Structures are given as C-alpha cells and as structure tokens.
C-alpha cells in the first residue's frame, strides 16, 4: 500500500477510516447512539417475547414447546454472524492496524460465546419435549457446539498472550482462519447429519411457516441483532477507557465523573 501513491479518493477514505477508528471519536459517537440502541433492542425483544409467549398459536406437532424456537433460532443466527463480524474486525485490524478494530474483536468474543451458549442450552431444552432427550446430535446443535469451541479458542488465545499488540494480531488471524472454516464445518455437519438421521426432523426447519409464526420470529431476530450491537458497543467503550487511560481525554473524563 505504501509503495505506490494512492488516488485522492482513497486517501480521503483512509482518512475517514482513521477518524472513525480513533478511540476518542468512537467513544463520543457511540455515547450518543447507545441510548437509542438500548431502547430499540429492549423494545423489540420485549415485543418478541410477549408475542411469542402469549399470541403465537400452538404448533400442531410440537404444541407449546415451539415457543422456545423464538429464543433458540435468533440466538443461533446471531451467534454465527457474530463470529463473522468479529472476523471482519480482525481483518480490518490486520490490514489497516486500526486500534478500534482490535477492541471490537476482543469485545465481540465473550458476547458471541454467551449467545452461542444460549443457542445450545435453549436447543437442548427444546429437544426434551420434541425428541424426548436433552441432547440430540442435530445438525444445528452440533455445528453450534463447534462454533462455541471456536469462540472459546479466541478467548483462550487472547488470555494466554501478554503483549496486547501481538495478542490482537494473533486472535485476528485465528478469527480469520475460523471464519474460512465455518462454512465448511457447517456444510460437513449438515451432510453428516443427513447421513445418520434421515427420518427425524430438525429443530425449527419447517417447509412453510405461517405468517403468524414467522413475523414474531423476525422481530426476535432483529431484537437479538440490536441487542448484540448494543452490548458490543457498551463493552468496547469500557475497553477503550481501559486502554486509553494515559490520554488526557480519558483522565479528564475519569476525574469529571
């Protein structure tokens, strides 16, 4: 990149990138956005919960236990795309060395891991009334379990390395390797599942869901995404305070509050 001159518009882009990537401006912008995010995510999850518990009709096969779908499926979706977003942050950090991307990577891992954990636990609880056992090596549950291992690997590598700069680059590298593997893992587990369990049906996979069932699901998925972003930004702000405590603006903030 540095060996040849960049056209102007790219320089402007880079400049803008670095401005947004500055911890201080991120802290200020996110501080203004966060209240809105909290309200939006709280409202959509609340709506989704009331809708799914109170108004969604019973499933003709699964009865009331289908209501667990409304917290299992969004968790599984957000767990997966959370890993992908974390890997994007890792790529940005490796390519442009933007500090904030490393903060993003570090803060996404524990949130992603706990949402993955939720997807697993709710899946297991849903499995009991549906299949009669707590755990089935169902395609989605199995690949979610592997996803949890991938998250835990990121957290373990981060905590094992003392130097923050190289810890950031190493976890970014690992997240990229993981995200390349994720579709392969998912495909292979799906394929393995169809080989071994040809007859039984998988969690939440219905040929055609009526609108009264999938609209609340959509609301819940949206709510989970918003909630993920809210938690992510909140954690990033705390981590920025932690990392930038030598700077004037953080010290002024600490003394002032």
């Amino acid at each position, binding site marked *: 990149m540095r060996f040849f001159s960049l056209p102007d518009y790219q320089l402007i882009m880079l400049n803008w990138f670095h401005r947004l990537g500055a911890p201080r401006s991120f802290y200020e912008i996110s501080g203004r956005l966060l209240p809105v995010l909290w309200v939006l995510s709280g409202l959509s999850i609340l709506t989704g919960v009331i809708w799914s518990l109170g108004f969604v009709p019973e499933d003709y096969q699964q009865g009331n236990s289908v209501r667990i779908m409304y917290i299992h499926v969004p968790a599984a979706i957000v767990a997966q795309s959370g890993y992908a977003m974390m890997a994007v942050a890792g790529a940005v950090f490796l390519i442009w060395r933007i500090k904030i991307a490393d903060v993003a990577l570090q803060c996404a891992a524990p949130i992603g891991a706990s949402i993955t954990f939720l997807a697993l636990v709710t899946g297991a609880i849903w499995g009991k009334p549906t299949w009669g056992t707590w755990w089935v090596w169902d395609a989605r549950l199995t690949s979610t379990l592997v996803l949890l*291992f991938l998250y835990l*690997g990121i957290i*373990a*590598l981060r905590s094992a390395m003392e*130097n923050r700069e190289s810890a950031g680059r190493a976890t970014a590298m*690992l997240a990229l390797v993981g995200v390349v593997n994720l579709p*392969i893992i998912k495909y292979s587990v799906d394929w393995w599942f169809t080989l071994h369990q040809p007859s039984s049906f998988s969690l939440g996979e219905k040929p055609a869901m009526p609108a009264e069932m999938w609209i609340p699901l959509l609301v819940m998925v949206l709510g989970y995404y918003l909630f993920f972003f809210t938690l992510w930004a909140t954690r990033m702000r705390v981590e920025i305070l932690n990392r930038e405590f030598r700077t004037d603006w953080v010290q002024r903030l600490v003394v002032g509050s």
Partner: protein
Amino acid sequence: MFLKTIRRDLAVVFRSPAEVINPLIFFVIVITLFPLGISPSEAVLREIAPGVIWVAALLATLLSVEVMFRGDFEDGSLEQMLLNERSLVSIVGGKIASHWLMTGLPLTILSPMLALMLFVNPEGIRAIFFSLLLGTPILSLLGAIGAALTFSLRRGGVLVSILVLPLYVPLLIFATEMVKAGAAGLDYTGYFYWLAALLSLSLGFAPLAASAGVKISLSQ
C-alpha cells in the same frame, strides 16, 4: 529454501529419533485403549474403528505439531532464518512438510496393521490408508497455524488443541465417512475428491496463515 528446511529438520530428527517414534507409540497406545475400554467384540470394534483410528491420528498429530517451531524459537535459529532469508513461506512450508514426513506418513503406513487389529475388512483398510494419506497432510497444515500462533507462549500445549481441534471437524467427518463407505463395499471416490479438495484448500491457505502467525509470534 523449502527443501533445505526439510533436510535440516530431518537431520535433526535422525539424531534423536524419539521425536518421530513417540507420536507413533502414542497412536498405537490410544488405539489399544479402545478395545480395553469398550469391548473386544468384533462387531463393536469394526463399527468404531474408523473413528478411533482417525481420532488417535488427530491427537498424535496435535501432540507433535506443538513443537514444530518451538525448538527453533528457543535456540534462536528461527529468528536467524528469518533474518537471512526473505522466503518465510517456504521455510514454514518446509517445516510443515517435514512434520508430515515424520508423523503423518509413518501413521499412515502403520494404520493398516491397527485396522487389522480392529477387524476392519480389506476394503475398509484400503480406505483407511487412502483417507490418512490425503488427510494427515491437512492435519499438519492446520496444526501449523495453531503452532505458529502459540510457540512463543509458555503454556502452549493444551492451547494448540483448543485452537486447532474445531478446525479438524470437517476432515474427521469426511474421512470417517469415506472409510465407512469403503468398509461397506461402496464406491468412495466422491469422498476421496472431497478430501482432495480440503487438502488443496489448506495447501493454499495454511502456509500463508502459519507464516503470518510466525511473524506475529516473533514480534512479541
């Protein structure tokens, strides 16, 4: 540089052959534990043989992959190599290749005997041999990424397993299904191509990722 690294690593190993033999002993012992722990019955062992052999191969590779860069890092020769030569990727590639020559290849050669002890039929034994021949290089390639990211850490051992084992899942699935198909007398060329695709994918990406990992670890 690639060949030079291989020659150098092999020479080091031939002076102390324990490093090659230990993973093999481990491989055999782990496989021996299964008849003892589950059942010596022929039907049971034949059923679990592909999984047992493959999981044992995974673990044996992981144990040995951890030291892939560590020795050279501790005596400073890794940094020397990087100073003198610009071709980091070919050095790392050489390390991966010599790791495969020292563990993956012997494991593959040893596997028919162990499969025989687990009552796998001749078709299945052939499938095990070919699945390991294509699969063990993938084990070394992906393992190298984990080794590259952790060699500078004091407690690297278990960490490598945590980082790398999830990445082995697709390989394990395709390889064991290939062996099962082979043992059932079915055509397994489809699986063979799958493993070949995984191998070429990891041949393309893993040396680059591992070299980047080496650079990150050295910069600490």
